[in-house]
């Protein structure tokens, strides 16, 4: 993080004519963007809290205040274990999967072999592609009858599982595709970390007879901890917001009802339960807040900064 602005501050002569003019310039330049952020990013957080206290059908004119009723329903009905469970599994599997595979790919990319820049671009590409398009392509590959995966499985004498109808397999399917789409991001960030690694330390260890595996595990990996920490936070936050792939591949939310998707289904799916949807959104937001807080308080201190 860059330490405060280096420009001189007009601390005690704050409202001289010059300062006043500067303040107007500042507002003219920054206000449109700040108003938009305040109105469409911050305001909804509070509006959601209000909506979450209502029993309200989307599109209807009347709503009754139910206080914490929506939250009580969420946590006492079967919804909470199912939704929080799906969220936990999806998040843990996608964060773990894309980081571990991303690190492996980064190590492979870190070798001096011709063609590695092309491989690097190729691996990163899915990260920038439309989740809807990508989800559609994989849905075809996973098709139990005509899909490429079913064809390969038949080749080795296996029958394709019913990926879409089985809730557990549907969750596994969206996890696989999400990891496929995002591991390139982890790989490129890890690669940047590997390439900024101090060479002398690794060479010293090599001279002392440490093998490649030992060098990686006892030197490179600990030195990568700031990168690992950064990736953990960014992938965790984006996994909790994953929507496109789930919506296109498992539109009914059967087994794939994570917090974000369940919130969408409740309001804009079959039920039109705006209040209940808002309550789930608030739960998601609190979860994000707690994790960001934990990150700032605890994890950052344990990280080794090279």
């Amino acid at each position, binding site marked *: *993080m860059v330490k*405060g*602005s280096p*420009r001189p501050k007009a601390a005690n002569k*704050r409202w001289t004519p010059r*300062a006043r003019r*500067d303040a107007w*310039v*500042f507002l003219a*330049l920054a206000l*449109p*963007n700040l108003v*938009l*952020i*305040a*109105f469409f990013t*911050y*305001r*909804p957080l509070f*509006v959601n809290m209000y*909506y979450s206290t209502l029993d309200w059908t989307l599109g209807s004119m009347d709503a009754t205040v139910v206080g914490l009723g929506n939250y009580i329903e969420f946590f006492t009905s079967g919804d909470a274990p199912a939704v929080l469970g799906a969220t936990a599994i999806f998040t843990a599997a996608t964060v773990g999967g894309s980081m571990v595979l991303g690190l492996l790919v980064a190590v492979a990319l870190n070798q*001096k*072999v011709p063609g*590695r820049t092309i*491989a690097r671009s*190729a*691996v990163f*590409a*899915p990260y*920038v*592609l*439309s989740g*809807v*398009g990508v989800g*559609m*392509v*994989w849905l*075809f590959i996973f098709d139990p009858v*005509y899909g*490429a995966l079913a064809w390969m499985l038949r080749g080795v004498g296996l029958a394709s599982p019913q990926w879409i109808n089985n809730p557990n397999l549907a969750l596994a399917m969206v996890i696989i595709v999400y990891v496929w789409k995002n591991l*390139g*991001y982890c*790989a490129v960030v890890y690669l*940047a970390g590997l390439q900024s690694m101090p*060479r002398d330390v690794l060479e010293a260890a090599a001279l002392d007879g440490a093998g490649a595996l030992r060098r990686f595990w006892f030197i490179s990996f600990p030195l990568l901890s700031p*990168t690992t920490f950064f990736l953990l936070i*960014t992938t965790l936050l984006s996994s909790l*917001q994953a*929507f*496109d792939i789930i*919506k*296109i591949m498992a539109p009914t939310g059967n087994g794939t009802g994570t917090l*974000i998707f369940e919130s*969408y289904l409740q*309001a804009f799916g079959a039920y039109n339960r*705006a209040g209940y949807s808002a309550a789930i*959104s608030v739960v*998601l*937001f609190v979860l*994000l807040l707690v994790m960001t807080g934990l990150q700032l308080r605890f994890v950052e201190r344990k990280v080794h900064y090279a």
Partner: protein
Amino acid sequence: MSTQTAESFDERATRFDPAGGAPPSGSQGDSRDRPLSWRNLARTAATGYLPLLLATLVVVAPLGWMVLSSLKAPGEIITTSLSVLPHSPTLDNYAQAATTVPFARFFLNSVVVTVIGSTIKCVLAVLTAYALVFVNFPFKKAIFLAILVALMVPPQVSVLPNYIFIAGLDGLNTYWGIILPGLGTAFGTFLLRQHFLTLPASILEAAEIDGAGHFRRLWQVVVPISGPSIATVALVTIVGEWNDYIWPLIVTDRPEMMTLPVGLTLLANSDSTSQAWGVLMAGAVIVIIPILVVFAALQRFIVAGLTQGSVTG
């Protein structure tokens, strides 16, 4: 690079040694003195190329499969005896996709939303970042902090209140309704602010002494020397706008106002094409390929922009 060069030097030294030379050290020597031995080649292939090839293949194969399938006749797809290449490539799937749903219109809508949305976002980001770095104002630290926190707030959480607001203004199924709620840009502001802080203060001071006001300093000094950073913000914004899904999905229900990702969902849900994979792959190609082309041409900016923060902390 350094290890590689050192090694090849070693090899040459050994080879030019007329006496045949003793290997420099026992265990490593065997593989070193004959660089093109089968064992060495196999090792390089296994540890160097194979993982790279595998990783590339895992990424490229599904996309290639998408393109190939979009060119196949239905009989080649609805079959259990698969062939990789289409026997007689045809664009029929594209034609059918375009007659089932208005794909040309989706494309136009996506272009309109992306161009207008990203242009405004970039201008707003430049203006805000300039103000945060170069203009004095009492609460700048707090404002920057608020922008940083906004980066953490997932847009999905804001969908319902924004939907109610836009619907209340009759903004459903309109371009402005699709574009407006996403216009505030925390990401672009953050990225450009970090860049502006690295600009040498002397240049701006010189311009100020020459009598250039803030607007001239912004457009004639700061913007021209920040080309790559602005390009980065622009490209990342374009990719984001093109791929944006949840908001256009909610705010449009008339086909003539849908963007491409939403239109692809419509195509998937329409009865005549629900399992017609060739047609759906044609649709996926139209959604995916434009961004893939942009990425291939300008990836240096895109990768830098998207992985920002890993370096700046």
